[in-house]
């Protein structure tokens, strides 16, 4: 295989990897503070994509303005806000009741929510997917990267996601806001004694993690068509990513996500039938060699 082909597969892998990174980052943030694995993460990613699709293709006609569309850039802001808001409602009114019980109940609750969301959308939208027509004009076409021609939009999605991921990392690891957050993970009682409203902080954090999923959903909409099941299969792969990386570190979640996207892209080039399962097999190897995960703390 030529170097150019390898570089080309690297780019394709990266454009998948950024979605793994964004989703596992959201899961890791939520898990860090709440000790809950959000099974609805995939469904909320799907919801994020649907907000963009509905805003562009359906909302105008419903309001009697057939020519009005909610553009991509607007969706990039509106969708995370809406879905993040829904996430906060879920945390405040449902998840919060379960903190005193075994953590598996949080997993089961969010699994139920995922089924509800998927079922609702599967009733009204095509399972095999609806294309999102709102990709902005400025991002259409292809760019010459020297070793390949690459869709401009995909390049944008990669760069944008990486910026979002590292901005999140910066806020959590390098600012005073993040310090409060990390302190809340270590010792919520003490942080509360300093006058910080920890339950509200938990709600906002959950909302933020979910908003990241919705943002990923909007970014994915022009690349993959929007379907009620788009999050379901993705989330299982992301779970494997999380097991491989370990949820101990924010940076670990981002790096593992990007890396596994690359591995998947390269597998697609070398041996296509294994592309769907390679991440699961890597998980097996990691469990055998380093059970706590690459970035996990050994307990």
């Amino acid at each position, binding site marked *: 295989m030529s170097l150019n082909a390898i570089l080309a597969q690297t780019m394709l892998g990266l454009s998948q990897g950024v979605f793994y990174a964004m989703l596992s980052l959201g899961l890791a943030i939520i898990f860090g503070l709440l000790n809950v694995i959000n099974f609805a993460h995939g469904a909320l990613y799907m919801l994020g994509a649907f907000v963009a699709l509905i805003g562009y293709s359906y909302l105008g006609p419903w309001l009697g303005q057939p020519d009005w569309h909610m553009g991509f850039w607007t969706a990039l802001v509106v969708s995370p806000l809406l879905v993040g808001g829904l996430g906060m409602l879920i945390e405040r009114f449902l998840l919060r009741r379960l903190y005193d019980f075994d953590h598996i109940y949080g997993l089961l609750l969010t699994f139920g929510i*995922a089924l*509800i969301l998927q079922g609702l959308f*599967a009733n009204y939208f095509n399972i095999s997917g609806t294309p999102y027509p709102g990709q902005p004009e400025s991002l259409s076409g292809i760019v010459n990267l020297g070793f390949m021609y690459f869709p401009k939009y995909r390049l944008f999605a990669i760069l944008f996601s990486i910026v979002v991921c590292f901005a999140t990392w910066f806020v959590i690891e390098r600012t005073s806001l993040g310090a409060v957050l990390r302190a809340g993970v270590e010792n919520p009682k003490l942080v509360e004694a300093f006058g910080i409203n920890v339950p509200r902080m938990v709600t906002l954090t959950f909302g933020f993690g979910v908003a990241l999923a919705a943002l990923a959903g909007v970014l994915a909409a022009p690349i993959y068509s929007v379907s009620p099941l788009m999050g379901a299969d993705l989330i299982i792969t992301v779970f*494997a990513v999380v*097991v491989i990386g370990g949820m101990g570190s924010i940076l670990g979640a981002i790096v593992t996500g990007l890396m596994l996207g690359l591995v998947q892209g390269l597998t697609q080039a070398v041996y296509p*039938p294994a592309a769907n399962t390679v991440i699961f097999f890597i998980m097996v190897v990691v*469990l055998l060699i380093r059970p706590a995960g690459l970035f996990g703390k050994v307990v």
Partner: protein
Amino acid sequence: MSIMNRVFWVVLIVAGLIAPHFVYPVFAMKLLCFALFACAFNLLLGYAGLLSFGHAAFFGGAAYITGHAVKVWGLSPLPGILVGTLFAMVLGAIFGSLAIRRQGIYFAMITLALAQIIFFLALKLPFTGGENGLQGVPRGTLLGVVDLSDPIAMYYMVFAIFLIGFLIIYRTVHSPFGQILTAIRENEPRARSLGYDVERFKLIAFTLSAALAGTAGATKALVFQFASLTDVHWQMSGEVVLMTLLGGMGTLFGPVAGAVTIVTLQNELASFGSWVQVAIGSIFVVCVLLFRRGFVGELARRLGAKSA
């Protein structure tokens, strides 16, 4: 044995014996297969405290293997089911030995991810029929004597298999082994400090649970005469969790009640398309928030409270 459990035993056996004369036999067999599946799952979740989110791999995997063994290799029904069960057992031992390396939520995620490998295999391997599933599995004749294409004969064979599986679970739970599992569930470090090899007990429980889930799936493949992707899909893994939770995890009869409820509900709502999924999801949410003990657990608590 408590009075409540005796009543349940009688109800179970009587209902099981007369069921095919009151409900459609294939539906009754479906109930039994899922009830066994849920009981096998409960052995792991309810008694060992391990939440597997990948049990569809054993249920569906065994369905494919048995379907293939009976259809292509020409095995008769019982050896066919045995082959499926053995497959699930070996798979369970492999998955189990990987998953017990992590605990709690990670355990659930690992089993889910491992089961996804089996799903992709069922989709891609040549013998599985891909999207169409493995169709046209013959029911054959039991021991060369009883023609199982007769639904009533088939029903009583399935009922017998269910009872054997149920008795194995009953014996396991009420053995010193079962007591140790419960001890691990309640306080793992303590069980370890008492000198028990916790990993080995977890692995045996996982393997046994997987094998019995496989028996249920293998039997289902013969009942419906096909194995499909639905059987190995993650949603199946979720449904068996719900059956166990709704009926009452850690109770002997709870999973049977849960399975009967969910399968009946799916049957009644079958014409509403994806609303079934919404209904299942809603029951999940309500159950987790308000009803964590499940039907039988709640009943036992109330009766216990009265007598005490």
